[in-house]
């Protein structure tokens, strides 16, 4: 910011930080490019939008509040199965399906948040991991409801707004996923720039200091955990509605780990980090789709070690550093 220190009106300074920057607008305009440039890749694009929403929801708790979760896919899966089941049993209207999924995931998130907010460090990681595994086992053993390892079949998504059918090429699907992503992104952005968002950053920066300034950290954590769970649920519901199937993988440990990888690759705590990470990761995986999944995990492992060792703040963090270095010299 070019404001001179001290003389600047503090209100204006903080306002300036929340203004939409040109590069942001360019980014969102560019999300429309697939329609013009890669019409064959619209399905992939909608998968990316969905994963981007999922990563964004994780960013709210991990990047902003510093809650490391290895079980975030639980909420994605709850959303996916909820939307899938609602549709399978006769109500295929997409938007209400999303809402129902959000409520279901949010409720479960709210219930677990009472446990989550009491822990940090290893205990927290273990608990999120445990909740995720527990749910995976539950979905696996409740085959009569979830279809077990075969996945949930028989989902039929109705036309969007009653007249836009979901076509094979993913034209509607991408528009739908992108629109939902954008709306929720704007929501998340507002939230981050609110006093509540500031409190979340406080929790991340110094958890033990927060009570000493009168902050009810646990209540804050409960709120954000619930919101993040609902958002993850919406992402899962989008996947269920656009692919018309739900598999056990949607709430598995691998997906939980994968979304952490994507977020960290892009840069956690930066709002766009998840989106950038998801784009890079998913495009790369699409390019290497020929290789066996286990070897794909090899490269993810290498990527993780590399990011932690050389790029601690992800792609966006590295880019920001580069920019500031250049502008200084």
């Amino acid at each position, binding site marked *: 910011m070019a404001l001179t220190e001290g003389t600047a009106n503090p209100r204006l300074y903080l306002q300036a930080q929340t203004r939409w920057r040109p590069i942001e607008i360019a980014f969102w305009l560019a999300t429309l490019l697939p329609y013009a440039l890669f019409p064959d890749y619209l399905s992939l694009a909608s998968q990316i939008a969905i994963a981007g929403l999922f990563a964004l929801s994780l960013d709210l708790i991990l990047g902003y509040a510093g809650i490391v979760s290895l079980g975030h896919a639980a909420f994605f899966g709850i959303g996916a199965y909820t939307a899938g089941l609602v549709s399978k049993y006769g109500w295929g209207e997409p938007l209400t399906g999303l809402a129902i999924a959000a409520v279901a995931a949010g409720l479960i998130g709210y219930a677990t948040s009472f446990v989550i907010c009491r822990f940090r460090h290893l205990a927290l990681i273990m608990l999120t991991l445990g909740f995720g595994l527990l749910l995976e086992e539950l979905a696996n053993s409740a085959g009569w409801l979830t279809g077990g390892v075969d996945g949930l079949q028989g989902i039929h998504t109705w036309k969007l707004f009653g007249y836009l059918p979901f076509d094979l090429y993913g034209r509607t699907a991408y528009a739908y996923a992108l629109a939902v992503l954008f709306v929720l992104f704007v929501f998340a952005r507002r939230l981050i720039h*609110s006093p*509540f*968002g500031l409190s979340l950053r406080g929790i991340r920066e*110094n958890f033990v200091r927060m009570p*000493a*300034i009168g902050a009810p*950290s646990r209540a804050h954590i409960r709120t954000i955990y619930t919101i993040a769970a609902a958002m993850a649920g919406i992402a899962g519901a989008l996947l269920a509605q656009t692919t018309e199937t739900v598999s056990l993988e949607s709430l598995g440990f691998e997906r939980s780990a994968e979304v952490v990888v994507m977020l960290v690759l892009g840069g956690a705590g930066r709002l766009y980090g998840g989106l950038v990470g998801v784009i890079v990761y998913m495009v790369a995986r699409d390019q290497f789709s020929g290789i066996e999944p286990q070897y794909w995990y090899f490269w993810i492992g290498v990527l993780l070690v590399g990011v932690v060792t050389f790029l601690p703040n992800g792609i966006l963090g590295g880019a920001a550093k580069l920019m500031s270095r250049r502008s200084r010299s």
Partner: protein
Amino acid sequence: MSPPALAARGLAKSFGSLVVASELEIELPKGVRYALIGPNGAGKTTLINLMTGMLRPDAGRILLDDVDITALPPEQRVQRGLVRTYQITSLFPHLTALESVTLAVCERSRAARAWWRQLAAHGHEIDEAYDVLCALKLDSVCHRLTRELAYGQQRLLEIALALATRPKVLLLDEPAAGVPREESKELFAAIAGLSHDITVLFIEHDMELVFRFASRVIVMVGGRVLVEGTAQEIASDPRVRAVYLGKAPTKELAELRHD
């Protein structure tokens, strides 16, 4: 007579076999400037931890303005006006000074619960935070990240965070710890300039500062209050000389303890 701003009744705490507070009886009348002194390990920080709820006492009660707050969690004590700072700087490294203080102000005004309104719309809170920073002469660095601030400025920011919560009772744990002598005088001048609605208790090893800025002094040794009185009484009390000041001349000793 009005009740004391803060009182501890029969406060006791042990870590295993180490007794760090035993049968502590402390009363801080409203508006008084108190100093809490005592050798290292006397249990001064522990006393602050107990009163602010960071530690749970084994026995005893804590009264804030005659209300029993012993069972309240730390953040609720802060909301009722009992606020502390830390001996070891504990701040938010990647927030700017203004953001940090605004955070504290928003928590006090309950604006922090509003996640649907942008920060920029909370002009009052921002202005108030800025005023606190101005009062402590931190306004010129208010947009710097906390971790980039000079150490002395970080110590001031500790106090700024506490002030932002509008304390009734302020417990300062060695506010000048590690600050050069010259700066620590300025820092104490800022503390002395605080409104007299605020009751202040500060821990400090430098006797010169203690005698200059405190009207009353509590001397703690081994988890007990050795003596309590006005600065003059303490300075001339033979027990204090024997136990705390020892045989060394006051000034040198004060510097020795200054860690």
